[in-house]
């Protein structure tokens, strides 16, 4: 819990990206996004973008409403690339509480979903991994499918989970 609280403070800083330096926080920021090469084969290929609920439509359009109804507090996203070939996006939604994360995670599951050990509950498909941990909901989606995609996505997901 101490770690989670520490992250909560850090998350506020990270999710207010432009004000991180202004805030002058000297504590170590808990950033959910693994740095390049922190996970074997994965490079962080974009800056982290953050959205408040009122701006979330700019990123996910109509999807934003279900997140708002579920109590989203903020969202952050970053692109990644695996071995220079597989492009993926990592979305981290900070919800008001675990219920909100669960509500979103349980929506729209397909028949071929597989449960995986990630956070409090994890789901995997051929090209995506989603999990919730506390009030965080994480969705990782790859744009290409290959034999190595599922394993690579799981490795990245574990990297994010560790940071939460």
């Amino acid at each position, binding site marked *: 819990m101490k770690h989670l609280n520490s992250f909560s403070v850090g998350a506020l800083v990270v999710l207010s990206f432009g004000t991180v330096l202004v805030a002058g926080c000297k504590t170590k920021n808990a950033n959910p996004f693994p740095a390049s090469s922190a996970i074997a084969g994965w490079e962080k290929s974009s800056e982290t973008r953050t959205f408040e609920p009122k701006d979330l*439509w700019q990123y*996910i*359009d*109509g*999807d934003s409403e279900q997140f708002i109804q579920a109590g989203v507090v903020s969202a952050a996203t970053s692109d990644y690339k695996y071995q220079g070939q597989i492009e993926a996006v990592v979305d981290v939604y900070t919800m008001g509480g675990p219920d909100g994360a669960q509500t979103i995670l349980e929506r729209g599951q*397909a028949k071929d979903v597989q449960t995986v050990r990630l956070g409090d509950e994890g789901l995997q498909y*051929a090209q*995506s991994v989603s999990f919730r941990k506390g009030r965080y909901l994480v969705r990782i989606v790859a*744009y290409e*499918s290959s034999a190595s995609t599922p394993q690579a996505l799981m490795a990245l997901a574990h990297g994010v989970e560790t940071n939460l």
Partner: protein
Amino acid sequence: MKNRREFLKGAATGALILGAESSFGSTLALDRPSEKDKAKVIIARDPALHGLDGKLDEKRVGELLDRAIAAYTGRKHPVDAWKHIVVEGGAKDKVIGLKTNGLGGKGISTHAVLVFVIAERLQQAGVKPGNILVWDRNARDLQACGLTINTDPSRIRCFGSDVSGFEDVVENWGSSHARFSRILTRECAMVINLPILKDHSMSGVTFAMKNMYGVVERPQDLHAGGCNPGVADLNAFPVIRKKVKLTIGDAMTSVYEGGPGFRPEHLWQPNALIVGEDRVAIDQIAWGILDKKRVEVGLKTLEATERPPLYIATAADETHALGVNDRQRIKLIEI
């Protein structure tokens, strides 16, 4: 097109040319020679559109477009068909906009190859490269389609409303308010609508009419009530009604659940283009296509999930009069 792969590459830094007069053309009637009373909608399919590697076959996309446009216009030769579209659209020697949809991000955005082929056909029909403007909300959306920003007016241009800005004046229609992109109001004499077929968590379906959300500054203001009457109201604004004349809907890849974002677990390949002028009729047909797929995979219909696209009927009502949603009044041609 000789430079198809190159025409959007190497973004130039030329100044954006603004200030072209708005040109409100008369109502287009590309299908006038045939059944006047029905809205014509073409669905052109090619099951082999995606290769074994899962990628679109560029040559086949071109052939599919040619078949669709030939069926729609009744003109067998693509150059003749596109000349007809340009002239009837009131866009001869004027700027033609190609409005894509890249909001869903890479993987579920209007395919660049479709844009390339249309741009190629327009040029073959005599349209100067500088009179072709590929556009969307912003650079990110365009890049999601696989396009490259270019503002050099001597070449095919590609940029978003983040470059052009929006009109200062707020316009009103019904209960809706909007500030329109200057690309629509000042640049384009005619717009060819290039949406991509998707499920939508609020409106049920996002396709021909809802793609117009990308031409206003604050589309989020139009999302209430399952986007009803927002979608219908928006399409009823004169500038859209008069300039957005032809829809070439990208149904080569689609998402039948979890949209409008990229959800690979719900992705499928209808391998189709859907062409027509009546956006209401097109959306009505698109609704049926989505529902059919949903049922095939064991999902409830959009109506059963309480997400029916009610805006379609609203758009067809007497107040909006944007088109027809009565299936009996739609001439659907599947090729």
